[in-house]
């Protein structure tokens, strides 16, 4: 009798243990490459219920954790989460909630709580820096209990209102063309008055996350500083003279990035520059921090094909 009850307890414990395991799914980030990044999340993610999302980064060949990821803009891994209807967005990090411990730095295993606000298909993009470059991995996440269609029709939007703030987007040329750099300016106002108290937020005046409306072509950029402008002029010269010397540009970038973070744009305008890789509608989340309080504006941008004759569709 004693043996049976002991077996029963062991069986229950095993069952509970496997339930915990079974309740979690491990999603492998795409694309593949020299780093394997996984996201651990509950199998069933309920709307409005906080879950813990855990990312882990290993070397693909050895399976060993990537130790000592570089800190870039004050964080080791930057995570950007949006639903594919583009009605919500988060730029979120482990360190927003807990200080990093030595074992987490050693294991490249970081976690953060997140509450998905609506059902549907989500995309999380995670960015980390190791060796000489940053890497981006994306994950597809289903939230809610059934099939959801992400059928929001996106209209071009150049103004965005958040609380008592308004962001107005303007372009340096008539419209962005795929493959061409375009300078954009965001004018920020509060209660219809120009904002002049922008602060650095995670090492920059602005964090910009961009997706095409099909969830592809993610990009993450920042304010267009005078140093960047100088570099772009160098690039323009390079393009004109057809002397493509990427090594030279690398050196320029290293010099630029060696400079400490510095507040350059206090408002009301923040310039950014971006090269949209393909035509289509893009969603741009623009995060800045008037008086140190982060807010996110959303803009929808229509990017035209480079050639006026035929657009390039994906086959």
């Amino acid at each position, binding site marked *: 009798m004693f043996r049976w009850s002991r077996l029963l307890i062991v069986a229950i414990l095993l069952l509970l243990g496997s339930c915990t395991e079974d309740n979690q799914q491990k999603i492998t980030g795409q694309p593949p490459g020299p780093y394997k990044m996984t996201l651990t999340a509950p199998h069933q993610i309920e709307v409005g219920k906080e879950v813990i999302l855990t990312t882990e980064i290993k070397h693909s*060949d050895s399976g060993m954790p990537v130790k000592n990821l570089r800190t870039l803009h004050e964080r080791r891994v930057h995570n950007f989460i949006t639903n594919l209807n583009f009605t919500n967005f988060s730029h979120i990090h482990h360190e927003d909630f807990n200080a990093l411990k030595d074992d987490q730095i050693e294991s490249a295993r970081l976690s953060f709580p997140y509450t998905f606000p609506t059902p549907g298909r989500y995309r999380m993009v995670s960015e980390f820096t190791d060796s000489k470059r*940053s890497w981006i991995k994306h994950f597809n996440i289903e939230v809610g209990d059934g099939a959801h269609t992400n059928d929001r029709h996106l209209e071009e939007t150049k103004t965005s209102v958040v609380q008592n703030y308004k962001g107005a987007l303007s372009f340096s040329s008539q419209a962005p063309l*795929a493959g061409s*750099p375009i300078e954009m300016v965001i004018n920020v106002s509060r209660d219809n008055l120009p904002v002049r108290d922008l602060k650095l937020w995670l090492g920059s005046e602005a964090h910009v996350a961009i997706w095409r409306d099909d969830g592809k072509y*993610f990009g*993450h950029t920042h304010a267009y500083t005078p140093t960047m402008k100088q570099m772009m002029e160098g690039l323009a010269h390079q393009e004109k003279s057809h002397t493509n010397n*990427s090594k030279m540009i690398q050196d320029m970038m290293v010099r630029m990035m060696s400079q400490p973070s510095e507040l350059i744009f206090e408002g009301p305008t923040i310039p*950014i520059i971006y090269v949209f890789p393909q035509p289509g509608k893009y969603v741009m989340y623009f995060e800045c921090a008037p008086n140190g309080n982060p807010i996110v504006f959303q803009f929808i941008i229509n990017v035209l094909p*480079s050639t006026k004759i035929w657009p*390039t569709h994906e086959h």
Partner: protein
Amino acid sequence: MVLAISLAAPGYINAGHGFFNSFEGVPWLPEPGLMPDQFVYFIDEAIEKFQTSSHVDSLDSKKKHLAFAEEKLAEGVTLLKNNNTSHHARIEKSYAHYLKNLNQSFSINQNADETNYQQYCADRLLQHMYILSIEVLDSDRSTAKHFLTLNEIASEHYRGLIENLSRDFFDSHFFKKEEVKWSWEIALEAD
């Protein structure tokens, strides 16, 4: 270049973290299917040859050529990642064969759909080069020369494809080409 113009991280270059990022979310290579070191591979090859034996005139046929080229590339990358270089010549020959036929199938007097597809193929070959520059990092250093050969094949046919496309389209590839070049430079510097 690239792309990556970011403002921190002393001494580090950050692809993807900057004003330009051309390749996030692009389709990676397909599953390789049967591999050259499998006995029945010759049947697979024969079927592919039969399916592409007619002229490459139709759009469907062009798509088939690109699909088979990608399958060859996937086979090559899989073998190289397993440190298997014994079939590289065969793979390179097949990859070049499909791309050459595809390249030659486009003409100046073609219709809009075909020009559209030619643009897509040019984009896709740049993506092949980028993918190779990433996959080489996940492979033994000794295989790098074979990755470079595959890259050269893609590059040669890319040049052929883009030659007759519009100047606007050609110019729009400037940053993408720089990103590929930079990605290769940094891959070969790794270790």
